[in-house]
């Protein structure tokens, strides 16, 4: 009986009684629609979900501990591996937290390139969400369309940084290197194709009756509950709360770009779908503006003790060579203090809490991952729904277990 289960809050070991018509189903950790290694303990009455308990930690690798043993610049590499669908967003949150402690100013060109790549990455992340979400519900073809266009974005990221999934492109004080020759042309070519691709995705799903009936009215969470559960990003905006860190606490010059924050009032899977679809078009607008603004200029801050010098300088100037040696061998000292820097990642608010004791290694780095917090609300959304709908709800939360378990 439901009351008996409530007496053992959150217990993983739910026992079946022969007198009771309910059963326990362990879904995952190896289940394709849990998007990684998530396990759900589902207490079922027929096909109805009475209780859902997420069980996480299968992918825990102690990244936050590892940060304390690495120099600040080495930590960037670890951030790539957290939310592996949005690595540039993770890079940005981490380097901006360090820059806040160091109090260094980033040149305008570097800021624009950061915005450009973060928005491209947001589109890429949403494309993976769209493809896998549709695949989970049973529509296979959107997956191929989405991944074909995501591939083009990964090619752009590879052209600039050399890495596709793990770019580590943003560095403390600027960027790893400037954009390669011809990047603007390749990026414009992608932008020319993208609106047409968006129309294709919309044709495949938005007007599809099957898609609507699987998503409308499923997994509802009210705006008030969403705030109480700490939801951020498209999950919160799908419940009609117009909050976006890019507007609320602007960073990297987002206040100067012209874009809208899409919201939908109903708080169901369909609303979250529509928010993300509209968000991709807004990101497209931002990329377009950023590309128009690109002008030649420095891409690294004027902070020789923090930023690696150019190769060319090192060959000509003794002091550059010394700085390079010291930064690589000993790292740079960061003033003691603590900061929390939030950014709007593709899944919601990604906050980095960084604490320094004045040395070359951080004293504590904590990542507030949006997936971690959003997943917590899964029981509220799924209790009372059918088993098949859990798959749709997990898809609509857009979780990445690499970030949840860290």
């Amino acid at each position: 009986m439901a009351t008996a289960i409530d007496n053992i809050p959150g217990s993983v070991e739910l026992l079946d009684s022969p007198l009771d018509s309910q059963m326990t189903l362990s879904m995952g950790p190896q289940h394709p629609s849990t998007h990684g290694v998530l396990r759900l303990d589902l207490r079922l009455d027929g096909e109805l979900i009475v209780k859902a308990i997420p069980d996480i930690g299968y992918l825990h690798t102690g990244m936050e501990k590892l940060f304390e043993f690495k120099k600040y610049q080495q930590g960037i590499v670890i951030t790539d591996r957290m939310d592996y669908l949005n690595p540039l967003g993770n890079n940005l949150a981490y380097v901006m937290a360090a820059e806040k402690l160091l109090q260094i100013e980033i040149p305008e060109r570097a800021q624009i390139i950061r915005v450009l790549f973060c928005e491209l990455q947001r589109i890429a992340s949403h494309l993976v969400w769209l493809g896998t979400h549709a695949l989970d519900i049973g529509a296979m073809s959107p997956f191929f369309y989405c991944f074909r266009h995501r591939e083009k974005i990964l090619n752009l990221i590879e052209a600039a940084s050399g890495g596709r999934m793990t770019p580590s492109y943003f560095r403390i004080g600027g960027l790893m290197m400037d954009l390669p020759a011809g990047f603007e042309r390749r990026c414009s070519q992608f932008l020319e194709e993208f609106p047409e691709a968006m129309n294709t995705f919309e044709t495949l799903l938005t007007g599809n009756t099957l898609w609507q009936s699987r998503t409308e009215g499923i997994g509802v969470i009210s705006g008030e509950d969403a705030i109480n559960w700490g939801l951020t990003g498209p999950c919160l905006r799908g419940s009609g709360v117009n909050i976006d860190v890019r507007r609320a606490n602007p960073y990297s010059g987002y206040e100067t770009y012209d874009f809208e924050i899409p919201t939908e009032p109903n708080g169901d899977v369909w609303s979250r779908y529509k928010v993300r679809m509209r968000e991709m078009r807004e990101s497209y607008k931002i990329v377009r503006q950023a590309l128009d603004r690109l002008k030649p200029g420095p891409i690294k801050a004027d902070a020789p003790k923090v930023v690696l010098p150019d190769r060319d300088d090192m060959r000509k100037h003794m002091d550059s060579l010394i700085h390079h040696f010291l930064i690589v061998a000993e790292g740079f000292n960061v003033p003691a203090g603590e900061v929390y820097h939030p950014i709007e990642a593709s899944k919601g608010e990604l906050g980095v809490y960084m604490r320094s004791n004045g040395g070359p290694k951080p004293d504590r780095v904590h990542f507030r991952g949006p997936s971690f917090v959003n997943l917590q609300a899964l029981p509220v959304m799924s209790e009372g729904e059918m088993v098949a709908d859990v798959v749709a709800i997990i898809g609509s939360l857009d979780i990445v277990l690499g970030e949840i378990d860290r």
Partner: protein
Amino acid sequence: MADKTALLGFVENLKAKNAAWVEEVIDAFGEVSIVVPREAIVDVCKTLRDEHQFDLLADLCGADRGPEEDPRFVVNYHLFSTKHYGRLRVKVRVSEDDAKIHTVSHLWRTADWHERETYDLFGVVFENHPDLRRILLPSDFDGHALRKDYPLRGYEPYSMN
């Protein structure tokens, strides 16, 4: 967005309500933090949530200042307001011998998993928490991995049996 003067104004209001609530105000790197005594954390959070519109708990995390420090642990609450967009950090210092603090999960449901994570990795106990179990590490794990005296590679190779 609520600027720094507005945030400091909220802190002044808190002080006016009960002078013992705010032990220290830290204004650095463009962020405002307040240090709150352990006993007052629920009252302070409730006041901030109900009277100053900090309705979203963005993050809750622990930090270890090292085994030689007393109080050793710090619990940070990062509050955000969906109304005036202000951000405020509330800090509570907790000693190692009595590493206990009252939960805020009845004020913000989102605190549930954050508190479980802090308990798991630092061993800070959140009293009256509805379900205080380990969340990231296995339930039979020995020690608290993010403490400064816990070695990076652990004590022995961990196996699941």
